[in-house]
């Protein structure tokens, strides 16, 4: 029994070691208890050479040990040295088995029998110390492991990887280089993984590098095999090694034994903590992943802060100065007051915990606007989300009459339709009085929608109402739409899914809220595509109105979300609103006429089908070449290269051709760009005009190149200074005229320290006059069109 420490820190991960370093530096008596013989076991067990990210970028690091993105080895070395440098009191091989409180003093019992006394305890044990294990016979056999240290250590083995999360897939891909790998996925698809990993695993499966069992569960593990329960019955897979990556959960039993309460029985639930990270047991603090903050930087900041709180110094969180700057234009500008006001006034933000709200606000912009200021314009391509804190904004619902305005007050949100559909803004929004609004980027909102249920529910309900009001029943008061909206539901479809089939009974209709569909009909035993329907339109009303079976089949052209509206609710709405009824019927007649015309031109339908198959349907601006006009002069490529530092972003010759319509390899500026989904420095943006471009903060990681299904992004060295012909001729400077700027190309030309960056079509934004490729086409063969214009392309060519 020794002295009583001021602080005992359990776990030496990023949070724990940051706390210990700060305690050591501030001269607070402390002990850092680590179960293993090294620091930060979770990161120690990362795959060798793994690149560790330092997100979120905007968050400053506040700790007495440094940390920046880099290789696992570099980071661990750095921490070891610094912990030694500050003379932190680390006790290795100290597995804490129990924490009890005796009056004002905690007693920590260790596995080796020792007992440590401390006035305060910081639990920084994370989740990884408690990996989920297989729960079947044979789970403890020696060839079953739950971690993978160095994938290159295994060679010519047959390895079964269980678990299709990010960790499992990263392991499987790394192992597949020199082993036969079989991946076991419990569900029928890869649902919860990063986009980059999805691309990698899909490619690996296509190439045959990895074999997958979907919808399979482990039944039993034998000496050299694994027995699976699959959809088609039991399967026995012979293997040398089994690696199970099943995630981790809070070591609940231990945490509860310390007296800490969990909010519910859910396996994934985490203990609740106060804003000073104190649990329901006074003096017992929880930081890092166990408290719900899994990022390294967050945990390190919390480690620093928790020591300050314990010694009685209530410092503001690390992001305080950033938020102060964000709120500088507000009166009063006190961060805590503003956050409290936001939480009280705006229902969408209400259910976020304090740290989530701070994060959301860090990503958002604060706009203080005078009456009449425009927030965004109709047809802009922006996709951020807005919330109103004070004052009112007006939505101009009629494009031709700006005086028709719907006013939204404090607490309301708008701009969610651009967020969902990725299409142009459907209305102009102006400040109706002096107001304060927050603009939150699409990425942040999507993360919140995925992680916070109540945010999604609130958004969905209001969004359905707005979408119905905008696209289906303009001018109909909300009260009349209540019945319809309440019974409506959101349905999701994947590319090629049938939304409804010809001959089905028609008892509902769909309003397409994102994505697009094709309408086809069976004529003479063959499917003829009649039309392409982009988001913002409704389908399936024909069968409803005529009380007949479906006259056509509607398929999703790519990932599509619809609002499914019940037929009865829609009919009763029509009965109450004669103008709406007249509008819908007029559209109905128009559609019948258009369908008849298209049936006479099956060729046009084939072209639509071809373009959809090429993924053009999700584009907003597509380069199409009419091969009957193209003289193969490649002036388009030359123009692209000349206007973009010598690198052409389009490959005219590559890409498929149907009839005389050629889709070259060139960016389509997708409505939900795949390339944007996983960009670490957030360097890919979309302008209000719709162009998707990459800015100078690109780090050349290649995620976007992999994520683009159309292979239109390439990694290239940044453009060099262009030397004129004489400096090349006389001094050998730069590449020869017309020669590509290759790394160490002819003349030993060297790019030096420069690294490759991602380049793609930016639609020649910044160059007056529009896309250079189109303007440089001498014969008018190259054309940029949006999918809405397909029909005219198809009709002309057909």
């Amino acid at each position: 029994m020794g002295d009583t420490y001021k602080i005992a820190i359990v776990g030496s991960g990023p949070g724990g070691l940051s706390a210990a370093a700060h305690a050591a530096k501030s001269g607070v008596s402390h002990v850092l208890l680590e179960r293993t013989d090294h620091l930060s076991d979770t990161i120690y067990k990362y795959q060798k050479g793994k690149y560790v990210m330092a997100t979120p970028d905007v968050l400053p690091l506040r700790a007495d040990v440094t940390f920046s993105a880099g290789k696992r080895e570099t980071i661990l070395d750095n921490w070891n040295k610094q912990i030694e440098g500050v003379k932190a009191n680390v006790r290795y091989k100290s597995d804490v088995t129990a924490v009890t409180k005796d009056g004002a003093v905690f007693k920590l019992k260790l596995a080796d029998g020792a007992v440590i006394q401390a006035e305060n305890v910081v639990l920084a044990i994370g989740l990884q110390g408690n990996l989920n294990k297989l729960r079947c016979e044979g789970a403890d056999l020696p060839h079953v492991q739950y971690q993978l240290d160095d994938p290159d250590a295994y060679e010519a083995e047959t390895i079964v990887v269980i678990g299709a999360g990010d960790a499992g897939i990263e392991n499987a891909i790394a192992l597949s280089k020199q082993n036969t790998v079989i991946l076991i996925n419990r569900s029928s698809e890869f649902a919860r993984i990063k986009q980059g990993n999805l691309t990698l695993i899909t490619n690996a499966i296509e190439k045959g590098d990895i074999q997958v069992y979907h919808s399979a569960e482990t039944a039993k593990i034998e000496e050299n095999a694994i027995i699976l329960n699959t959809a088609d019955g039991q399967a026995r897979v012979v293997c040398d090694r089994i690696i199970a990556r099943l995630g981790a959960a809070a070591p609940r039993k231990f945490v509860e034994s310390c007296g800490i309460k969990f909010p519910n029985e859910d396996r994934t639930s985490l203990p609740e903590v106060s804003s000073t990270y104190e649990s329901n047991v006074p003096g017992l603090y929880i930081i890092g992943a166990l408290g719900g903050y899994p990022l390294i930087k967050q945990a390190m900041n919390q480690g620093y802060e928790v020591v300050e709180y314990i010694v009685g110094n209530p410092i503001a969180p690390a992001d305080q100065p950033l938020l102060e700057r964000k709120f500088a234009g507000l009166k009063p500008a006190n961060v805590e007051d503003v956050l409290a006001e936001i939480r009280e006034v705006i229902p969408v933000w209400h259910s976020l915990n304090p740290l989530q709200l701070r994060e959301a606000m860090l990503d958002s912009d604060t706009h203080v606007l005078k009456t009449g200021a425009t927030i965004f314009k109709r047809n802009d391509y922006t996709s951020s989300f807005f919330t109103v804190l004070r004052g009112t904004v007006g939505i101009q619902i009629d494009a031709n009459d700006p005086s028709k305005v719907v006013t939204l007050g404090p607490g309301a949100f708008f701009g969610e339709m651009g967020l969902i559909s990725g299409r142009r803004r459907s209305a102009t929004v102006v400040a109706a009085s002096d107001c304060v609004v927050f603009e939150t980027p699409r990425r942040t909102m999507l993360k919140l929608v995925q992680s916070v249920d109540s945010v999604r529910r609130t958004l969905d309900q209001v969004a359905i109402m707005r979408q119905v009001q905008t696209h289906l029943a303009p001018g109909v008061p909300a009260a009349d739409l209540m019945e319809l909206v309440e019974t409506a539901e959101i349905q999701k479809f994947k590319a090629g899914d049938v939304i409804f089939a010809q001959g089905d009974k028609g008892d509902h209709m769909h309003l397409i809220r994102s994505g697009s569909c094709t309408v086809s009909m069976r004529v003479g035993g063959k499917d003829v595509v009649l039309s392409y329907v982009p988001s913002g339109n409704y389908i399936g009303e024909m069968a409803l109105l005529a009380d007949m079976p479906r006259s056509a089949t509607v398929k999703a052209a790519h990932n599509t979300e619809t609002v499914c509206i019940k037929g009865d609710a829609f009919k009763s709405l029509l009965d109450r609103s004669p103008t709406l009824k007249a509008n819908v019927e007029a559209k109905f007649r128009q559609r019948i006429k258009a369908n008849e015309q298209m049936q006479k031109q099956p060729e046009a339908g084939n072209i639509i089908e071809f373009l959809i198959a090429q993924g053009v349907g999700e584009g907003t601006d597509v380069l199409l070449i009419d091969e009957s006009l193209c003289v193969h002069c490649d002036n388009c490529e030359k123009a692209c290269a000349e206007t973009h530092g010598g690198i052409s972003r389009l490959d005219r010759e590559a890409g498929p051709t149907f009839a005389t319509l050629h889709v070259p390899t060139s960016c389509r500026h997708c409505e939900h760009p795949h390339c944007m989904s996983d960009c670490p420095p957030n360097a890919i943006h979309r302008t209000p005009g719709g162009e998707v471009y990459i800015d100078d903060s690109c780090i050349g990681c290649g995620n976007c190149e992999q994520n683009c299904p159309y292979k239109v992004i390439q990694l290239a060295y940044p453009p060099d200074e262009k030397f004129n012909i004489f400096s090349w001729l006389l001094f050998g400077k730069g590449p020869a005229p017309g020669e590509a700027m290759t790394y160490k190309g002819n003349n030993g030309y060297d790019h030096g320290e420069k690294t490759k960056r991602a380049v793609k079509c930016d639609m020649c934004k910044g160059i007056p006059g529009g896309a250079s490729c189109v303007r440089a086409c001498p014969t008018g063969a190259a054309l940029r069109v949006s999918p809405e214009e397909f029909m005219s392309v198809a009709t002309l060519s057909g």
Partner: protein
Amino acid sequence: MHESILVYRNHRYLKWALVLAAVSVGIYLIDRPLGAPNGGTWLGYTLGCIAGGLMIWLAWFGIRKRRYGVGKVSLEDWLSAHIYLGTALALIATLHSGFQVGLNIHSILYVLMMVTIISGMVGLYFYVRYPLLLTENRKGLSTEVMLGQIAELDRDVRQIAMTMDDATNAAALKSTQDTIVGGTVFQQLRGFDEHCPTTMARHFVESSTSGDHGPQRRQLLTRLIRKEDLLKRIRRDVQLRCLLRVWLYVHVPFSVATLAALVTHVVTVFYYW
């Protein structure tokens, strides 16, 4: 949606050219100069200035084409106007000469200009006709893919021929090693090769009487026939692409020569005034 250069902007530049031509012809018919009509009358000078200006403007197209990302007018506008006004130039220059031809520097200019214009018309014919033929010939495959398929067939051919008699093997190997696509401009333009080793190998295998290796022979034959068909299409592809370019080797040098002759023509006219 896509619009050919000929009908571009509802024939805007055709209309311009027609107006220019009609006005020139009209005035030429009305005008009663002293003596025979020639370049020295007031109308002759006017038409000469227009023709000279047109020549310089037409030649500027070569520079404009290579200036990327500049100007408000699209290149298609330029080309459409280049074609119609270039055609009108033939008429205006002829009127300017008053139909006088002789063995002198002035007529050399006229001949050079006419060669340039006619080669341009040939080029236009190629531009209008061949893209479609090119696309039809490719049947949705790119040249690269076709070459890839040939490489694959060659691998098969080599493998099958290895098990067969020496003469067949030699013919097959020759097909995989010595078959040429493209070559000189003339070879490209011909579009076929009467000494094609692949055709010869196919003939040899077809006419071979030896009864051995029946199945291999058939396998070899089908591959050689497939390769021959691909070669035919690739050679046609090369031929058409060559045609789309080759006329420029007349059009461009002659247009430069025309400009040089134009300068000489103008200088001599004023020198001997």
